[in-house]
């Protein structure tokens, strides 16, 4: 069953075509990893799906509800956002709220869950990402890895049907990436529909059903991760993967060197 279909999505900033006719479909419960060079429009794509950015043209189908991006109403946007969780690249935790309050906010204000109940739910999710001792910490008192887990908890507590993650591990120290990916993998296997922008190939191999390669606002190639990574059909994909392998190797070498020191 198709959960999400994107048809001919277009977005320009001052004449700069950032999304140039994107078409994608994703079945319920499947996980899609999006890769592509910096500036290729990955973030903009996710933002358009959540209407943080208003696409110039295109259609979204979510659960057979069709939305014309040009003519979408505020009410429709609010209804769609209730189904979609979003984890920002830099987390965007509410700075004036503790971890617990951050997670509670989406329950209490838009959904009217009583504070007591919301607190219990928030704590359960924080416990599940290993933050049982951080309920009362403010974002500035948390490490990058902890902030990221609060961001995931905040997006997950509202029980979204679709979860969007924008390079969730790119701001983390390399030694924390594995642990973070473990958490995201667990969520990926829980039956949620997920689109994740990531350059962690091991994650894509193990947890993604589809890999998508984007460049200059278009989808260059899609396939299952093994096919796409081991046998790319397009020259641009090949070039990109070669660079990615080299960067990953450099990172690994750096890490090893650091550990030796």
């Amino acid at each position, binding site marked *: 069953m198709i959960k999400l279909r994107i048809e001919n999505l277009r977005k320009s900033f001052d004449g700069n075509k950032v999304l140039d006719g994107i078409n994608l479909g994703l079945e319920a419960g499947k996980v899609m990893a999006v890769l592509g060079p910096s500036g290729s429009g990955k973030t903009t794509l996710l933002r358009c799906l959540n209407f943080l950015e208003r696409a110039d043209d295109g259609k979204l189908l979510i659960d057979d509800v069709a939305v014309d991006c040009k003519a979408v109403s505020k009410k429709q946007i609010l209804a769609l956002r209730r189904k979609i969780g979003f984890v920002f690249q*830099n987390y965007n935790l509410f700075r004036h709220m503790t971890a617990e309050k951050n997670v509670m906010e989406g329950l209490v204000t838009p959904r009217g869950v009583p504070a007591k109940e919301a607190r219990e739910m928030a704590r359960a999710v924080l416990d599940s990402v290993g933050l049982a001792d951080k309920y009362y910490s403010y974002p500035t008192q948390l490490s990058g890895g902890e902030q990221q887990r609060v961001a995931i908890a905040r997006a997950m507590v509202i029980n979204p049907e679709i979860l969007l993650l924008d390079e969730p591990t790119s701001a983390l120290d390399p030694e924390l990436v594995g642990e973070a990916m473990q958490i995201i993998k667990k969520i990926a296997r829980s039956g949620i529909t997920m689109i994740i922008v990531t350059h962690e190939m091991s994650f894509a191999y193990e947890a993604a059903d589809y890999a998508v390669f984007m460049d200059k606002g278009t989808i260059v190639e899609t396939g299952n991760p093994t096919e796409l990574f081991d046998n790319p059909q397009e020259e641009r994909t090949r070039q990109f993967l070669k660079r990615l392998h080299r960067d990953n190797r450099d990172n690994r070498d750096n890490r090893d060197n650091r550990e030796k020191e």
Partner: protein
Amino acid sequence: MEVINRFFSVEFMLKEIPFIASYLPTTIFMAVCATLIGWFIGFFVAMFRINRVPVLNQLAGFYISFIRGTPLMVQIYLTYYGIPIIITMFHALNGQPSAPITPFLPIAFAIIAFSINTGAYSAETIRAIVISIDKGQREAAFSLGLTASQTMRRIVLPQAFRVALPMLCNSFISNVLGTSLAFIVSVVDIMGAAKLVGGRSYRYFEVFVIVAILYWLISSVIQRFTYWLENKLRIPGTS
């Protein structure tokens, strides 16, 4: 001692302090009202500007530019002479040209003038603060399903308030000092009382030393309170 006393009498000062200080409540009352009403006005004006509400945005721009471009003293006189005229015109338009003007207390004119003045300055401050709240904070709220007004109330304003608080206190201090102009519309505050004592004794210098010390004391107390409050509201882990 005798000689000095002729030019500068500490004895006289000590005697007159209680009388002048007894008008402190008037000074503080005017400043509190002007600051609260002014920031209330400023908040709405800032919202008109930020959301570019048609017509109101242009009016707000004119209001801010006019108030910032004219002296406070002139604004007080405009209020003092202008409001009765407006009320009379209003009566005339309602077909009662000779209806009596309910007498306004002088202090009401002063508070209106100071509030209008504070409104213009605080509007720009509030606008700058609200704009400075990271866009990501608002987007995170939207992504959780908060509406625009919920986001304003739950995320933007609480963060803005922490930044605004020291500025609100500064605005209060400058209103305390600014109300010293209220005597021109015959309000008797500490400044007005000082003029009375001065006129009666011709010891103007001593009188204004008292006034200066009083203003300085109030300002220092507010400043202290501000530091304390800032500390209390600080988000843990930030500097």
